[in-house]
């Protein structure tokens, strides 16, 4: 019998509804898959006991016809979401012993909708990174390999565990967070579908903060429909998060299959870069073609301030992070190195508890906020941020969505870029501007490069118009005939 892990989210949901199998069967298969995928290092904490216990409840609910929208569906959760009574580390030594006494709003919404936690997923430390190599708990390995099956590749980051686990079919979906591309880039690297909702769509309450004005939770799944279903259960207005939106949450699933005839797709000229590989260009062209064939109109547009997005991001995000991470001081929780002097205690705790990338960003952030540098860096970056937002709002007067590549390249090898932060940062060049403007965007697998690695297309939407994104993403998905991963080499 094939493993039930082969089913995607909606297939599993339908199977459970039709009583083709029990939640317990589904969960047991997923626990097996999780245990046999440890080579990928996608999970920091596995929670099989919790999953099995929840499965019994879900089976009862199915038996009593009191099943909820995600009843019995196993999900992995990025270790940035606080989960009550379950180790939550942000993949940092600093929180390697932290068990939150509270549950994040987004995960709480999922459990209230019947979903089941499989385990907590590895990520870049405090979500800072684009390869999942900065985790205190070690790198996550991409389930994809090049055609030559040799080198181990990174899954992208920071939601590397979230993307790798879904690609490896351990869980029908997962939760990630996206501050500058941390859902979309790993989705692109692993052939999965990853959506960053509009800023404010999901509550940030209980999510360990990296950069508060940019952070947003989102779903990673193996197809667009699953993604829409999962997002529906994640969003809510949350009075505990002042920045969460009061907007009514639509039924995202119903936007799939909607016609896009007559809608306009903007192609931002500034995203076309010198030295862009032929494969990326070809993928982009294919995308335009598919959307045109479905009746959309393709329009070239300009977002003139695009080139400032990356520098702007690398000022604002570290600035906020330097302040958000000040609470990790060894006084009340988490890692602590004792000393008789309070300042020395801070120094020892923070030197030992944070990894290099986190320290680098704290230092950048502290620097750009310092007296004498604030105006030149932080204030200027804020002004640039408004200009970038304005670029988008003006362009969206003319188009309904935008289409770009998700990343400038496919997954790279482990350790390939570790010593070159700048080249690592450049990986986010297409995703970062979207966070700066607070817009929704989705990455959909659309082709493979010469070496057989997945590449993703990114669709960018108007604020709170995830529905249109799903309509378009669905068409790309149907047109691309992307063949998902079949070689589970890690089990051998």
């Amino acid at each position, binding site marked *: 019998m094939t493993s039930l892990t082969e089913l995607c989210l909606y297939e599993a949901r339908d199977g459970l509804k039709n009583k083709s199998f029990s939640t317990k069967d589904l969960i047991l298969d997923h626990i097996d898959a999780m245990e046999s995928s440890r080579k990928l290092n996608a999970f920091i904490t596995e929670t099989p006991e919790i999953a099995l216990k929840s499965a019994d409840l879900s089976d009862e609910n199915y038996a009593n016809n009191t099943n909820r929208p995600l009843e019995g569906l196993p999900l992995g959760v990025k270790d940035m979401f606080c989960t009550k009574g379950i180790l939550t580390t942000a993949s940092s030594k600093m929180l390697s012993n932290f068990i*939150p006494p509270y549950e994040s709003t987004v995960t709480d919404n999922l459990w209230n909708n019947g979903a089941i936690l499989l385990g907590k997923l590895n990520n870049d430390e405090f979500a800072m990174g684009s390869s999942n190599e900065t985790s205190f708990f070690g790198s996550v390995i991409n389930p994809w390999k090049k055609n030559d099956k040799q080198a181990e590749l990174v899954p992208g980051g920071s939601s590397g565990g979230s993307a790798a686990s879904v690609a490896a079919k351990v869980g029908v979906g997962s939760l990630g967070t996206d501050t500058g591309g941390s859902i979309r880039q790993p989705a692109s690297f692993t052939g999965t579908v990853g959506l960053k909702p509009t800023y404010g769509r999901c509550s940030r309450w209980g999510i360990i903060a990296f950069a508060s004005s940019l952070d947003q939770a989102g779903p990673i799944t193996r197809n667009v429909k699953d993604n829409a279903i999962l997002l529906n259960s994640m969003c809510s207005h949350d*009075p505990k998060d*002042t920045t969460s939106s009061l907007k009514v949450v639509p039924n995202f699933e119903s936007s799939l299959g909607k016609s896009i005839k007559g809608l306009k797709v903007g192609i931002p000229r500034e995203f076309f870069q010198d030295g862009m590989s032929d494969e990326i260009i070809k993928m982009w062209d294919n995308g335009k073609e598919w959307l045109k064939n479905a009746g959309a109109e393709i329009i070239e547009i300009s977002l003139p301030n695009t080139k400032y997005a990356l520098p702007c991001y690398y000022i604002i995000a570290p600035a906020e992070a330097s*302040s958000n991470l000040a609470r990790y001081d060894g006084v009340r929780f988490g890692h602590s190195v004792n000393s008789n002097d*309070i300042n020395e205690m801070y120094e020892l705790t923070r030197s030992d508890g944070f990894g290099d990338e986190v320290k680098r960003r704290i230092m950048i952030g502290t620097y750009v*906020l310092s007296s004498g540098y604030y105006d030149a860096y932080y204030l200027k970056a804020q002004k640039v941020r408004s200009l970038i937002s304005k670029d988008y709002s003006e362009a969206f007067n003319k188009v309904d969505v935008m289409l770009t590549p998700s990343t400038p390249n496919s997954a790279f090898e482990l350790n390939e870029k570790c010593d070159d932060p700048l080249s690592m940062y450049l990986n986010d060049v297409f995703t970062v501007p979207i966070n700066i403007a607070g817009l929704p965007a989705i990455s959909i697998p659309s082709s493979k490069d010469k070496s057989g690695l997945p590449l993703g297309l990114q669709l960018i939407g108007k604020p709170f118009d995830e529905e249109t994104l799903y309509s378009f993403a669905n068409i790309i998905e149907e047109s691309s005939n992307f063949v998902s991963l079949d070689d589970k080499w890690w089990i051998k």
Partner: protein
Amino acid sequence: MSNLVTGKTGDWEIVIGIEVHAQIISQSKLFSGSSTSFGSEHNTQVSFVDAGMPGMLPVINSICVEQAVKTGLGLNAKINKFSIFDRKNYFYPDLPQGYQISQFEQPIVGEGKVVIDLEKGVEKEVRIERLHLEQDAGKSMHDQHPSYSYVDLNRSGVALMEIVSMPDMSSAEEAQAYIKKLRNIMKYLQTCDGNMEEGSLRADINVSVRKPGDELGTRCEIKNVNSIKFIGQAIEYEAKRQVDLIEKGGVIKQQTRLFDPKKGQTRSMRSKEEAHDYRYFPDPDLLPLTFTDEFIEGIRKTLPELPDIRRKRLVEDFDLSLYDAGILVSDKETADFFEIASKDSNSKLVCNWIIGELFSTLNKNNKTIQESPVTPENLGKLINLIDDGTITGRIAKDVFEIMIESGDNPVSIVDSNDMRQVSDEGELESIIEKIIQSNPDQVKSLEEKPNLMGWFVGQVMKETQGKANPKSVNELLNKKLLK
């Protein structure tokens, strides 16, 4: 009146500006639902937000915002319809988030003014630069253990208003009058209880000196002075220290100083070079505060009568002198006491009794007017007993003594102690006859010494234990002795 300090090289002017931290009266903290009550068990009023736990977010308490606007209106200040919260970053164990949420460039309240009351009825205007909202830190306790410091987070996140004055004060007296007035206004507004002992109101005092007419001198900030008396002492010490230093050829360095109440001195805490770089930036977890005109006007409608207006009304409605009215309104509770006591009684007498007998008794017993054993209603009744001739002024003092002791109603005190005034002419006449007959010598001397009449009055009072109606006694004595 001169505020100058005399040094060896001549006179110096003192320039004082004050930053007041006033704890807002509210049930819960500025950004969390934890209680704000004072004196609870350590670390029992701490939410996950107050403790700076990962993933926690602040949510603004709208009551605190309204209180700040109300205070701004009470200070005749401009309410900013758009203001933002900033993070002030520094490390300290009693600051769990590693930053304090405050307001930096765009505070909730802008420029305003306060009229302070000085001696001899002199008034002076002190300009307010701004008022902003911020959260308080927790409390570090260094005296609980020989080698550890303890942290109590009950205060962490409690709402404060920081009220910054312009450097408009030029003496300890003015600074004290400013604090008193500010405290009084906030008590009238019910936005801060003004309790300096519990730390609900704390002041940072900026002091500099200069030769009259010169540019402003370099200032030193005296942190966290927590009583009106200490504020006076700190300013006087600090001004003299600065004058002495300059006159000895020294230079004032900008620094933060602490006042030591035991020694009556200020000492350096840190210099400007050692000052923190707070790296202020807008808090991305919070939206800007935006107000409509309707919102502000709605709060303005809830403003109570403030002390300056009340003073004028007391003068007009109760026929008090400006001076007396000033004393009554300088403490809200005293003015409230007065208005209740004089509801059905002679207001001038009530005022005299409050400022005289009541104040001196309360002072002696170290009590506030709210703790007075004599209720305002009972004081009013006592005044009525005097006013309608039921008791004499002398007996009234005895009745008051008993009221202080027992808290009883004056009417029943007078009845049960047989203290009613004797006005019956027959009874008084027979007493007077008796005195005249027993003292022929005095009667004789009266012709040469008319002042002796007082002695006769005294004798009658003695005979009646002070209950005789002084007016009747005088009339009868005149009739009998000055034929």
